[in-house]
């Protein structure tokens, strides 16, 4: 099995897996590199451009890893959402 999974059944995608952990770890670094990269590259520092490119690559990697899973979670959840909203309306209206 590949280190990063790209195909998910809805039930498998509902579990927290390695792909979530990778996205969680990569994401703050992507933010930090993008922020510092923009600031330093506007003053034309070489390191600024390097940081900015690293930030863009990390963002791309994060999306590549997590997007198939998010798609699977979403498609499965949309089917159940109507039922959950109906339950919520019962709770808010004291009908339960």
């Amino acid at each position, binding site marked *: 099995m590949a280190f990063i999974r790209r195909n998910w059944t809805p039930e498998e995608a509902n579990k927290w897996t390695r792909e979530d952990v990778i996205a969680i770890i990569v994401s703050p670094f992507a933010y930090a590199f993008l*922020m510092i990269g*923009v600031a330093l590259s506007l003053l034309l520092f070489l390191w600024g451009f390097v940081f900015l490119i690293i930030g863009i690559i990390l963002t791309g990697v994060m999306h590549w890893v997590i997007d198939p899973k998010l798609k699977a979670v979403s498609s499965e959840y949309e089917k*159940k959402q109507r039922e959950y909203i109906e339950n919520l309306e019962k709770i808010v209206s004291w009908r339960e």
Partner: protein
Amino acid sequence: MVKFAFLDYFWLVLYLILMTGAGVLFYNLGKRSEADFFLAGRSLPWWLPAMSVYATHTATDTPMWVSGVIYKHGFRGLWYTFFSAWCAIAAFVSARIFRRSVAYSQAEWQSLRYSGLGSELLRGWMAGWGFFLNMFILGWVGMAMGKLCNYLFGWENWVGLVFFSSITAVYVLSAGYWGVVMADFQQGIIAFLVIVIASLWGVREAGGPYGIVQKLYELGESWRLNPFHFTGFFSGDFPVAWFITMIIIAVLGGFGMGTSIDWYAEAQRIQSAKTVRDASYSIWWGTALTLMRNAIWAVAIIAFFVMNPFLTDVKEYEMAWFRIAFEHLPAGMTGFLFAGVVAIHISTISTHLNLGSIYLTRDIYHHYVKPDASQKELVWMGRIATLFLLIGSFIYGSMMEEITKWLIFALWIMGAGMWLPNILQVVWWRFNSWGYLSAWIANLGFSWLVVWILPTFGVIPELPDYLQFWILMFLTALVYIPVTLLTEPEDMEHLVKYYVMTRPIGWWKPVEEEARKRGLIK
């Protein structure tokens, strides 16, 4: 004082027409139901709430605050603005869990996560607190606009506060969240353009990128270009200990709900997204744009520093970005800039008008006062609540000088000792409503003691804020952990329902096993 030319008036009037037009256009969608008035029918693609996240967190006082920290600290001050990085993890954890709960507000989520009397107490408390918090933010941001108009045009402070908030209320009352999010989209684009143009113009005026760097070296201030220029591990005004604390609070806070005050506005955007995926990307990209905006501002403020070095009056250098923009842009562009500032302002006001009214409508009126209210009644209740907030914000705004320090204290106590409970309620099945309630109460008491009372009487020295955070977190835990363990867990039936619906992360094994035993999950 700033003088407007014809072109300046043109930009401003054009923008005001565009903005109020958004409300009129989406009136028919906003009035359809409670879900439309507050969540745009949970139907938005990720880029609309993303732009709304960005626009909302670009308020009139934001450039003042960013100017303050960057002027004082240089690029290392960017880490003060990095608190919004809680969305780095939240986008893939708490946003996913919250979106699946389908709760309208954080207060409603409490009643899905917890059960019984404790859950109702929490919902009522969170709703009341949320309503007044939004009123406070409206007053605060509105007064920042009043002060800016005073600086620019010499108007009395209340004029800018009342005029621009009232204009905003027109489309929020008409179209609810539909109006907010659609207007935010155009406001976000205008605000971003204005920030980029004005900031780059400032860089040009200061001698361009190379000129700025050279002048910083000549002034002996080149350290300002280093984002990691620490003053020691514990010593100085930028210690490593502060940096580590801030990174932990910001980033790990993403596992919880409510660890940042911005969560409550984001929660509405998460819920308005059409899928879980859209919800995740909306807050991730909205925050990415916010952080890059801070970086652009930071460069402009460094440019301001080389033109006006060594200012010591905070009130003076907090206006750095506004000054660089209004004092240096050519004639005809001032109105464009002011239209951008109006965009910045109005996007924040509209969000908090609509967000605050959710609590009064959904969590108080619909839940407790009139559970069988029709959709039409609920939309009208939303409008009445919006009007209450507007009027309340004028009163708050006019009192702001006196109450600000008290309210900032209230925000601080919410942030320190509540940080961990806000995470625990998401990741630990055994954490219950009594634990959460006791954390609120304990944190209130300990914050008074640690932040004010004990230092005032000389019992303990005045502590740096990062140390206060750790002490409050520890002391509060001494109360809520025993309370949680000595009281009953939440009802298993309720927890199983919540688990199946949201699939939370963390320590949920007993609930997961029960759900599996009942055949609810595979």
